[in-house]
């Protein structure tokens, strides 16, 4: 039974449960709701909650676990001889899944009668052509073991689905009956409902932790896989980045880190002075009218998606720089994409980030300190330079660190604007590449994660995650510590 139907049945059951539970409780009190422990709706809700929550939880877990279990049990039946040269179990399994899926589609589309599917063999049917006709493209002809595996995959999924339907519905009905029988005027329905709500809230709050765990685990496992295929020391200290999917790649992270740092430094060199001066001006000098006009406009820059900045770098800033510094100008620049292109555009993107964070921090400096300085005869700029900024310095450093972490993790601008060549060079007009850009190029459109060239993306991601996390934690620590100073 399709999952959608199961969910709809459960929900219908819950609605019925709500009405019936409410009525049963009312009936037990002789129709007088004052004799109930809780409001009538709580009795209904408790039946609905017991019907829905557990069955849906089981359903979700089942949907996640079933493919993994079936995959493993089918994979163990594939003989080693069935795995072609230069291929892997993972690739064969993805073929198996595709064939199984194709057979399902073929049955659904009426290309094969349902009762003949199990007798299909590779000899007398052109399986590849058949599957292509229902929209499943295969890279090669289907071999006998793959077909067998696909058949057992289909059988297992079928059994699994039937079992899932039965179990989930049984749990729903069980919860329904259990809670329905409890609906009695002395039953403390409100306490039960409120406790369940509390647990649901906790569950929702834990998703943040689950996400972090998910990120860390998915990065760690694949990184470990990568390091079994490629030595860690070569990855961290190698100075050449030249992946080739044929083997013999050199995957040193140093050039990528250098590109990332270089672009981020240029971006910060643009964003920090402009952002900081803008923040100082807007918070110390500007009239309220000017402030209410300029501040939101500058913050519009932060709301523009990064793909827009990427396109701006690729099609506008790059060609513009090329005109000035290219072969017709000073001759420093070879192509439109360069460290400078990406850095400048990223700097523009970061201006509102620096300015609004610094603005908050400057505003948090107590007015008394400004008044004190002004009272002693300092000019406004002297007050800012010698009193306000030093007092706000830790917060501003925190803001800059946050901006740096944003710059390091930025993807679209560098993918479009910085170029693809990994090199260690000091010339800012040369194309370089970054960690994020290489994650994209190593993982896009690639479904097989067994080669070091694809897995390296996970170690790059891990490096990126660790660096940005460290910067964020440091920045938050500094900002928080500073904030407490004046509160």
């Amino acid at each position, binding site marked *: 039974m399709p999952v959608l139907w199961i969910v709809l049945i459960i929900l219908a059951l819950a609605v019925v449960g709500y009405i019936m539970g409410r009525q049963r409780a009312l009936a037990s009190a002789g129709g007088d709701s004052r004799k109930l422990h809780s409001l009538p709706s709580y009795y209904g809700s408790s039946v609905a909650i017991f019907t829905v929550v557990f069955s849906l939880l089981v359903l979700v877990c089942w949907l996640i676990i079933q493919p993994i279990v079936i995959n493993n049990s089918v994979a163990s039946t594939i003989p080693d001889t069935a795995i072609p040269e230069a291929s892997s179990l993972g690739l064969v399994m993805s073929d198996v899944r595709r064939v199984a899926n194709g057979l399902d589609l073929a049955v659904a589309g009426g290309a094969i009668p349902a009762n003949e599917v199990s007798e299909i063999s590779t000899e007398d049917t052109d399986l590849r052509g058949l599957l292509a006709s229902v929209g499943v493209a295969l890279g090669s002809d289907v071999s006998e073991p793959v077909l067998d595996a696909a058949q057992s995959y289909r059988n297992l999924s079928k059994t699994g689905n039937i079992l899932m339907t039965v179990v989930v519905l049984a749990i729903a009905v069980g919860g329904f009956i259990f809670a329905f029988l409890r609906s009695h005027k002395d039953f403390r329905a409100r306490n039960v409902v409120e406790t369940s709500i*509390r647990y649901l809230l906790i569950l929702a709050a834990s998703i*943040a932790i689950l996400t972090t765990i998910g990120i860390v685990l998915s990065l760690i496992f694949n990184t470990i896989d990568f390091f079994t295929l490629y030595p860690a020391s070569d990855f961290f200290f190698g100075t050449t980045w030249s992946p080739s999917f044929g083997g013999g790649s050199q995957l040193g992270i140093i050039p990528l880190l250098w590109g990332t740092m270089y672009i981020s430094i240029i971006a910060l060199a643009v964003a920090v002075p402009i952002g900081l001066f803008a923040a100082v001006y807007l918070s110390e000098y500007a009239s309220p009218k000017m402030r209410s006009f300029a501040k939101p406009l500058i913050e519009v820059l932060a709301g523009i998606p990064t793909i827009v900045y990427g396109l701006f770098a*690729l099609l506008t800033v790059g060609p513009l720089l090329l005109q000035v510094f290219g072969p017709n100008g000073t001759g420093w620049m070879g192509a439109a994409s360069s460290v400078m292109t990406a850095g400048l555009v990223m700097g523009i993107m970061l201006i509102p980030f620096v300015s609004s964070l610094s603005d908050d921090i400057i505003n948090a400096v107590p007015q008394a300190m400004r008044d004190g300085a002004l009272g002693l005869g300092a000019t406004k700029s002297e007050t800012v330079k010698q009193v306000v900024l030093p007092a706000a310095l830790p917060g501003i450093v925190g803001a800059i660190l946050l901006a740096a972490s944003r710059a390091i993790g930025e993807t679209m601008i560098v993918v479009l604007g910085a170029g693809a060549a990994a090199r260690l060079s000091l010339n800012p007009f040369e194309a370089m590449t970054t960690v994020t850009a290489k994650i994209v190029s190593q993982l896009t459109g690639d479904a097989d994660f067994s080669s070091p060239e694809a897995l390296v993306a996970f170690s790059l991601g891990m490096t990126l995650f660790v660096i940005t996390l460290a910067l964020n934690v440091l920045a938050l620590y500094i900002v928080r510590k500073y904030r407490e100073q004046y509160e």
Partner: protein
Amino acid sequence: MTDATSQNSVAGNERRTSSLYTLDARTRRRNAAETRFKIYGMTAVGIGLVFLVILLVTIVRNGIPAFTQTSFDMPVVLEAEALDPNGNRDPADISKVSTFGYNPLIEQALERLVAEHGIETEMSGADLRKMVSSGAAAQIRNTVLANPDLIGETVTFRVLASSRVDGYMKGRVTRDDLARDKNLDAEHLNIVDVLSEEGGLERAFNWAFITGSDASESRPEQAGIGVSMLGSLFMMLVVLLLALPIGVAASIYLEEFAPKNRWTDLIEVNISNLAAVPSIVFGILGLAVFIQLVGLPQSAPLVGGLVLTLMTLPTIIISTRASLKAVPPSIRDAALGVGASKTQAVFHHVLPLAMPGILTGTIIGLAQALGETAPLLLIGMVGFIASNYPDGITAGFLSPNSAMPAQIYEWAKRADPAYYERAWGGIIVLLLFLMTMNIIAILLRRRFERRW
């Protein structure tokens, strides 16, 4: 501060000959420094605003042409011998004639069109056909297949001009460019000039760009953003349906119920860190967990939506908590005082009062998710041509599709400059959506904001 006082006393001993009416050199210097400092600040604000203006002007100037498209109005004789050789109007027979069978009809139609306007040319029909989109044959064929009775008649079709002709009309392609281009010659442009003066060639608003699907690399004139817009819509539905309830529930717990303990601290630190994790890392998570582990289909809006949900959750949680916090404790106390339970106080009184703020935060989170590209690259929402509308709701969530920003990226990567125009145009569409969402958020805030 003893140093300062001693210095001052030294300074005080010197004879001062200045008066309040004439500024001494030092005051002038300090005042100049003050003016300079102020100018720096104004320049910084100015630079920021100038960048914004430049960005917007660039987008609009480059993107507006994508909303118009040049097309030919030409009568095509649908010859019965060519299209239905057996003469029985059997749809199966007609569909045997491939698009190649329609090319001669287009060529004849073009030759007639050129002759009608009295243009002398030595070009053959096949050469003339370069002015027309290569999708024209398919367009005519589909019309004929849908309506076989048209065979044998003369029907006026509006067919798209090729991207080069379109580019010439918009000023993107110049005659100099064509010297190195084998797709079109200067002679074609002479014809185009005459036709555009005398009618027969028209530049009209391009609905196909807004509603249409992506096209292959060689037919930029046909590419549209409609299908990927639908992909974005389905993703946003997933984000809204998951992120809003989960985010609100999490914030209610953290703000109203959570005891101060390590677990709560851990959750809070986690949320603030997740808000700053680079978006591409969420893409890696989606790839590893949703596609590799759970086995959800690649490129599906459902997966995109899930990834973006995880990415937007921190934003929504942070803004929801702020608006819950803004509800004064007296409301809670009053509810508790008349006998409501804690849960009732929160759900019946605090939550409704915080709702405008929560919705504002959610809309801003959605806008952020709508423009996000990097994670979508990793879960495979690029690299193919989103050519079909999904058939049905389930297919909308599960069948491969693109999303607006991913589609823009895809166009930006293609070699033909005609696609750049599409990319800018796509950005205008995307920004219009974002602007609408933000304006709604601002209006909501204005309308319902309450000062306690």
